[in-house]
């Protein structure tokens, strides 16, 4: 027991609610539960056969387990790649460094990929952080705003002269993930973990992915570099003419016609508009 409390067996006055809660919280997610400061609370907990510190351990345990399970549900492939124990270690580090700032756990995990990149223990799995990025993008898309894709027929009213100045809005819930590793392939083979072990060669190189959702169907599209660049320009509010020019400057063979057709078939846009006229579909 803490020295302080053995000195005073006299009736204790509970600290203020604010002080009690701060001390309780330090016990749950503090840097170390052996912090001297953390012992402030202990004399105010009735032991009844179980030491006060161990009663707090039950709460710490509950809190860590539920947060860890929430992270595991959002990042199942990261867990498969690193193994359960390794994942639990990363999750515990994350919970200590970045405890939830919101009560809804839908929003919990946004910095997990960054923590994985920074953690030296993940050095042997260099693509792990990007896999986490892809899983977070998928998760955000799952919960993101509903949106309806633009289809070719929506553009029938346009004249040829309209096209250079046209702007496109991408689907509201789209997410971009760019990686130097073949993370889509890695992610795909872990969707059916019992299907046997297929190897992915890191030599396959990187990818530029757009994650989007039509109604309940989440799609991950791996674009060719020129198409990805073109789409990113459009996403940054460049007009069709400017985006085409900028893409052709980088990729001389860029084929606008077939690329635009592909985008409309995939349904990546939600609407078109003109900057000056503000008219839209």
């Amino acid at each position, binding site marked *: 027991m803490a020295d302080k409390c053995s000195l005073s067996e006299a*009736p*204790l*006055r*509970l600290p*203020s*609610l*604010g002080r*009690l*809660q*701060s001390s*309780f*919280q330090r016990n*749950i*997610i503090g840097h170390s539960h052996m912090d001297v400061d953390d012992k402030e609370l202990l*004399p*105010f*907990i*009735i032991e*009844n*056969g*179980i030491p*006060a510190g*161990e*009663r*707090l351990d*039950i*709460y710490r345990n*509950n*809190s860590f387990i*539920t*947060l860890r399970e*929430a992270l595991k549900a959002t990042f199942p492939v990261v867990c498969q790649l690193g193994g359960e124990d390794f994942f639990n270690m990363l999750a515990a580090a994350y919970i200590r460094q970045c*405890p*939830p*700032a*919101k*009560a*809804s*756990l*839908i*929003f919990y995990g946004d910095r997990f990929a960054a923590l994985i990149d920074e953690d030296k223990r993940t050095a042997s799995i260099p693509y792990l952080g990007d896999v986490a990025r892809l899983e977070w993008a998928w998760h955000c*898309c*799952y*919960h*993101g*705003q*509903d949106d309806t894709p633009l289809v070719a027929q929506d553009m029938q009213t346009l004249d040829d002269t309209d096209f250079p100045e046209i702007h496109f809005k991408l689907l509201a*819930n789209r997410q971009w993930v760019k990686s130097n590793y073949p993370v889509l392939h890695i992610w795909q083979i872990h969707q059916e973990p019992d299907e046997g072990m297929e190897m992915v060669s890191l030599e396959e190189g990187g990818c530029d992915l757009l994650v989007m*959702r039509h*109604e*309940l169907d989440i799609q991950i599209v791996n674009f060719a570099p020129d198409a990805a660049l073109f789409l990113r320009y459009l996403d940054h509010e460049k007009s069709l003419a400017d985006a085409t020019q900028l893409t052709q400057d980088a990729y001389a063979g860029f084929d606008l016609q077939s690329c635009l057709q592909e985008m409309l078939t995939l349904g990546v846009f939600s609407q078109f508009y003109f900057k000056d006229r503000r008219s839209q579909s």
Partner: protein
Amino acid sequence: MFASSHAKQSFPRDFLSQPSFEKMVGENMVGVSLKAQHYQTILEQLPPLGWFEVHCENYMGAGGAPHYYLGRIAENYPISFHGVGMSLGSCQRLDKDHLFKLRELVDRYCPFLVSEHLAWCGTEQRYLNDLLPMPYTAESLDVLVRHVDEMQTTLRRQILIENPSSYLEYRGQDYDEAAFLVELARRSGCKILLDINNIYVSSCNHGWDALAYLRSIPADIVGEIHLAGHHVRQWRGQEIRIDDHGSNVCEAVWALFENAVGMVGIKPTLVEWDSNVPSLLTLLQEAGRASLIMDKISDRVGCHGG
């Protein structure tokens, strides 16, 4: 800083009267937790259940499957919202963003019940995703009355507050838990969500008398009953019961439920199941057992509604 001991209602009492449960729920007063695993089966089979309860935090995203399914299920069943993250017992201010998100959800789905917990979940803009124990003091009561009042005013409706499971008790408290809850309900105008499993778990963990707890809760302030499973853990040779909503309701809790129904009457009753979620059939069986007990008691005493 704290509200005076006679905090004013900042909204007319009319707001407190909700449409009657009987009207919304019909004959079947028993509901179960709505879990994502069961969305599809529920829509295909429309099982004979009175209602479903959701953790509203799981529906605070902008769109997608959760809203799609909840919307369709709400067309067929009454829905109850059960919050786990408002942190009403925190000495700090309520998270306005969270409260307004909840109001949007309430406006959208029109739940017949909205409930929260007698607990705090974190402080200093941190949420530990757990229901942490309150010291039952006059200061805590002021804080809770103020926060329940703010939540009811924002939602423009009455809420219910649930008794938690707990694994520790503080020294030097001013109230026992049941008296604290009753006083909170009296001062804030909220109702009580009586969780029978939590009463049992806390009573075993702290050596309380569960029946005495039930006796001190007036029937008319109970608006809902919860039933759930828990597990028993050995902690250095000592038994401690941990609430995890991950198994069948145990026999002792069924017996306590029977006592509770005899004391507080028939109330909308929920079978909660949140971890190791079983098939919908298992939930239906548990719900069926709750219904049988309620029928038995109402036949015996001829009591209907509370």
